[in-house]
């Protein structure tokens, strides 16, 4: 396997690791103060580093690693549910988030028990999770558009957080939804799709880095 291919395969570890190291360096040497939003994004980075490293290691050992992706899927869902729980001020939005999460858990269990067992890739669960997060991000954007505008949204932490979530999950939704079909057609397709997924993850991580480095945040009432 050439270096170019290797880079893209391991990009799902390299990107979150690089972003995490930049944040760590800034916290240690530049005194960056972390807010709850930042800690949640960092926990996503850490989850990706650990779980993707494990998945890649198992793959290298030629051991089935799909159960790691099942675990990654539910972990990511939990992390971003907490993120949106912090972000939404409105009780009705929080309730919707809780119903969405409950629905996801039921869907996840049904999927792993009846449709995509732990030894197959959890593409449907990923797709459902991505769908929900795109919805919640759009709710945040709608809330900001409806509320009193901040002077410059590009300076706001929550905007970049929600933008990162929307970008990563919105872009990857097609990959997750078509994964099952494309993997049946050709294994090569899966390889290409996963590399593309890693590119989206990288861009998502970079947007999260921007979120962590943003200093302003909006009043909760506007989201």
């Amino acid at each position: 396997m050439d270096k170019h291919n290797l880079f893209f395969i391991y990009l799902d570890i390299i990107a979150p690791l690089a972003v995490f190291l930049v944040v760590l360096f800034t916290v240690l040497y530049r005194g960056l103060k972390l807010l709850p939003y930042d800690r949640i994004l960092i926990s996503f980075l850490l989850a990706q580093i650990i779980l993707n490293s494990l998945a890649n290691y198992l793959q290298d050992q030629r051991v089935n690693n799909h159960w790691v992706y099942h675990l990654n899927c539910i972990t990511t869902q939990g992390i971003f549910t907490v993120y949106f729980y912090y972000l939404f001020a409105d009780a009705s939005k929080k309730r919707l988030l809780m119903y969405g999460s409950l629905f996801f858990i039921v869907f996840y269990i049904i999927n792993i028990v009846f449709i995509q067992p732990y030894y197959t890739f959890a593409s449907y669960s990923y797709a459902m999770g991505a769908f929900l997060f795109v919805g919640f991000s759009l709710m945040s954007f709608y809330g900001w558009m409806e509320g009193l505008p901040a002077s410059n949204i590009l300076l706001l932490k929550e905007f970049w957080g929600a933008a990162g979530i929307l970008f990563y999950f919105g872009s990857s939704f097609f990959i997750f939804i078509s994964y099952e079909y494309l993997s049946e057609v050709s294994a090569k397709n899966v390889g290409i799709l996963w590399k593309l997924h890693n590119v989206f993850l990288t861009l998502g991580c970079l947007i999260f880095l921007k979120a962590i480095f943003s200093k302003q945040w909006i009043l909760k009432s506007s989201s």
Partner: protein
Amino acid sequence: MIGAAVFALLVITFLFRFILLYQKKSIAFTSEKKLMETQFQQEILLSQLEIQEQTLKNISQEIHDNIGQTLSLVKLNLNTIDMEKPAVIPQKVDNSKQLVGKAITDLRTLSKKLHSDSILAAGLLKAIEFELGLVEKSGVYQTSLTINGEPVTLDAQKELILFRIVQEAMNNIIKHAHASTIAISANFAHNHLQLLIDDNGNGFKLPLEQGDINRGIGLRSMENRVKLLNGQFAIETALEKGTQIQISVPV
């Protein structure tokens, strides 16, 4: 691959579009806010001028009706002193001294009203009380001020505008209502101040008719000022049943 790229492009396009729309809204909001601030400042200046004008009118009336009369009496007293009847002189001098003392007290009271800052120095409620006192002095009106709840001191600019609204309402009563009582109540509750200005005059029909231009301008000016304070303005009136002006502003 193409499908995934199209999805990513869609998301990016959405984000750019959102940023553009949001920034546009933000710019519009900022200019609207600036405009409102300017209007607010202009309204304050106008209120100050109107209060001064009203104050000068009151003072002129007071000098003419009260101090002028008192001093005329003093003059009359002194003119009628008959040097040939020395027994009456001390009484006349005493009377004159008392009258001059009263004129001095009245002048002091008036001097306090010479600029609008001092009117509100003791707060809105005191200023309203003082204004009602002046109106009552005319002998035409019975006035009252009732305060409910724990009074809260408002921002000085807000108090100035509110005071001007009360003055305007009282002017309307004096000019148009043919009332004999003016009752103001200030209710402090739920982070709001509600001012109710009641009179027992002849009331009027709503909506206003063509001939009521002056009253209409006055009411619109009051309503606009209340809006500037993020408050609510309402009128309850009917022919021969008096009028109640209701003002509610956040404190």
